């Protein structure tokens, strides 16, 4: 499935913001360098984000990429999805 990288990035960011709001989590200002675990999102938030992104983008890079390291920063997380969408 092909999705242009801009739309992947904006989709990911919008889900991060949306789920943080729904879960009453204070989201740290999003930068590519921000460590995901310091973003204010806990595992349940990340789980919901990954599920929503699978619905929106049709990909789940966590289950797909055996060799890639788990993303540590927000930038890694976005690239994780951009690479999987290529």
């Amino acid at each position, binding site marked *: 499935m092909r999705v242009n990288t801009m739309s992947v990035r904006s989709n990911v960011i919008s889900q991060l913001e949306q789920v943080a709001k729904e879960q009453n989590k204070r989201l740290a200002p999003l930068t590519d360098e921000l460590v995901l*675990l*310091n973003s204010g999102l806990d*595992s*349940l938030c*990340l789980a919901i984000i990954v599920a929503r992104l699978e619905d929106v983008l049709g990909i789940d890079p966590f289950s797909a990429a055996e060799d890639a*390291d*788990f*993303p540590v920063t927000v930038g890694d997380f976005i690239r994780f999805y951009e690479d999987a969408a290529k």
Partner: protein
Amino acid sequence: MPQNDRGSLWNAVRAAEHLSDRFLWGAHASISLGDLARGTSLGGRVEELRGRSVLVATGDQLTAALALVELDGIARRLVLCPPDVPSEHVPFVIATAAVDALVCDRATPEATARSVGSVVACSPRIVATDSERSGRLETEWILLTSGTTGLPKLVVHTLASLAGAIKGRGPQASAPVWSTFYDIRRYGGLQILLRALLGGGSLVLSSAQESTGDFLIRAGAHGVSHISGTPSHWRRALMSPSAHSIAPHYVRLSGEIADQAIVDRLLTSYPEARTAHAFASTEAGVAFEVGDGLAGFPASLLVQRDADVEMKVEDGSLRIRSARTATRYLGSQDGTIADRDGFVDTGDMVELRGDRYHFVGRRGGIINVGGLKIHPEEVEAVINCHPNVRMSLVRTRKNPITGALVVADVVLKAEADPANGRAAEVESEILQLCREALPRHKVPAAISFVPTLAVAPTGKVIRRNA
């Protein structure tokens, strides 16, 4: 090793050498076992707890560990109350376990501390005492698990059943430093506490108030050699920049299905470690450990002779018979856990693929979100309170972060058919109801409106197993 050979937990701990070199490290305080040999964490009031049914309701894990070490053999019952038990369930636990004394610390919720007349404070400040810690009772250890109605189930173990899978340390091995992401009031965490205490090691306790990264740094600073957690704990740890603050020799997964992806990632991240996934449950005890780097378990485990644990698969679920299973449930009319032949049905459904069994989910649709079990009925009961809902089915959706998420299929009454434009409104009202009545992990991550649900002749919604 049967408990009779060991006596109480303290007797077993005391029998080892070098107690002063062994520690329980908490997030805020630590204790050497040598200090515990000369003093007490209970302010000299141990005798007041002799023969009592004691609720251990400390906020802190270190004080809970100290109380357990001191009171096994002395208390009639030790009821382990994890800090996330909702306060409205505490009176039920107290009544069901006939609790008549409580051990608390400064972090115990005030309502809990007031709920029992006899209260003894536990503190990491050890008070010197001359009195012998002599206990001969076979203390019942009560662990809480989630029940269908939302109220916890009280599962009865003894030190012997809990420690059945723990082998003593070989003479040549160096003292292990254990750690676990689990809370030690949960079965998976309690196993690690007992491994550290009975296996000649030390333990780094986690803390709910501490970030994953800070915990990993602290565990690394203490030289953790053996560390355990659920696949969800490990996925989170591997997303931390501090994942390489630890360099363990042994990495253990338990409490959830370990899929090949998480096993592979741990093998890559900690190439020096032996990585194993264990099967254990509060009711069935520790059954086996798989260390070959593959998900699932070899079918040959089912036909092992002379094993401590016998296993079979019946009606698709794994059944276990061993001296490590729990004795019974407290407070239910039929408190038996094992069947007439002594097998405990784990409710975990397995499928044979080639020469390996793989876990495919739970009977009864029980959902495991990051190690927390959810009975679909309790969520459905909340959804069904919405006036426009005819019926609902709560089920699992596979997830690579928490293993699973809760999702719901909802059938609306005709007058509120999604076609007439109220669907979005009803969806947010249902979610609001759920958020008010349920902890976060039980609130559906998605709601789908469906025209019908399959209903069995018994009138019950048909659940798929996985």
